[in-house]
């Protein structure tokens, strides 16, 4: 799975979970500031990523996931 494919899946997850249009989600979007996620929303997205991409994201890595881009990169590093 390449970056674009991961990003596309990420967009659909974020859009479903946070109720924002997928077209408004970019690599630079910050989950909390730009997309309106609260801490619970972020955990919800993280769990969805674990399910959809078959990776496990430990609690201590959560602070690394702040933007859509950082989530894409994180997932990619875990999958390789």
């Amino acid at each position, binding site marked *: 799975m390449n970056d674009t494919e991961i990003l596309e899946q990420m967009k659909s997850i974020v859009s479903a979970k946070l109720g924002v249009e997928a077209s408004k989600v970019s690599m630079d979007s910050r989950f909390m500031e730009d997309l309106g996620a*609260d801490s*619970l929303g972020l955990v*919800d997205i993280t*769990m969805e990523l674990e399910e959809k991409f078959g990776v496990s994201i430990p609690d201590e890595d959560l602070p690394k996931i702040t933007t859509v881009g950082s989530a894409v990169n994180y997932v990619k590093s875990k999958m390789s």
Partner: protein
Amino acid sequence: MVELVGKVALVTGASRGIGREIAIAIAKAGADVAINYPFEAEFENAKETLHQIEVLGRKGLIVEADVSNLASCEEMVKKVSLAFGRLEILVNNAGITADNLLLRMKESDWDKVLSINLKGTFNCTKAALRTLMDTKGKIINISSVIGIMGNVGQANYAASKAGIIAFTKSVAKEMGSRGITCNAIAPGFIETPMTQALPEQVRAEYLSRIPLKKFGTPEDVANAVLFLASSLGNYINGAVIIVDGGLS
């Protein structure tokens, strides 16, 4: 009139007692109901609850699961989702007693009661939480007035039921932003197999302390569940409804 048409509910410990009555009441209000029972010996009882639900023209499903085991609860929620496609109402009712004076209470009596009553409530809520987030579901935990008043010979049971109240209030705060409500019901002395097992003298003593001068019925508890599960209870969150005839 309470209406739950088109909803799906999961009631733990629904093979008999208060749980069975809750399951049937929810079905009467129009919902389909998954009936949890703990182990093989309760299978026939669970089937009887199922039968009573099907007679009402509703769909039922019996699911064996040990609520004290998280994996077992996750498996149960999967089965319910597979059968009904969603879940709107979770009633954490499964509970046991292992009474004894503290001086005589075994560590195993403490562990058993806490693991089913309190950890079981945590396990089932955790297992169902993401599904309930999709439906803005309602969680109803069956506590007890003993969890508020305490009781001789029931330190373990009282602690577990008080724990359920604190858990309920925390879930209400944590999940409220997702449209999930979480409330507790604290029944008093209700006529069930659990209380029928008590010595006549204990029953009489309780009766004398109940202002309404009668024991409650499982239906009295089920009525409070219906209220919280339906749209009538939409703005109630983190509450404890006491159903005890004035005992506490």
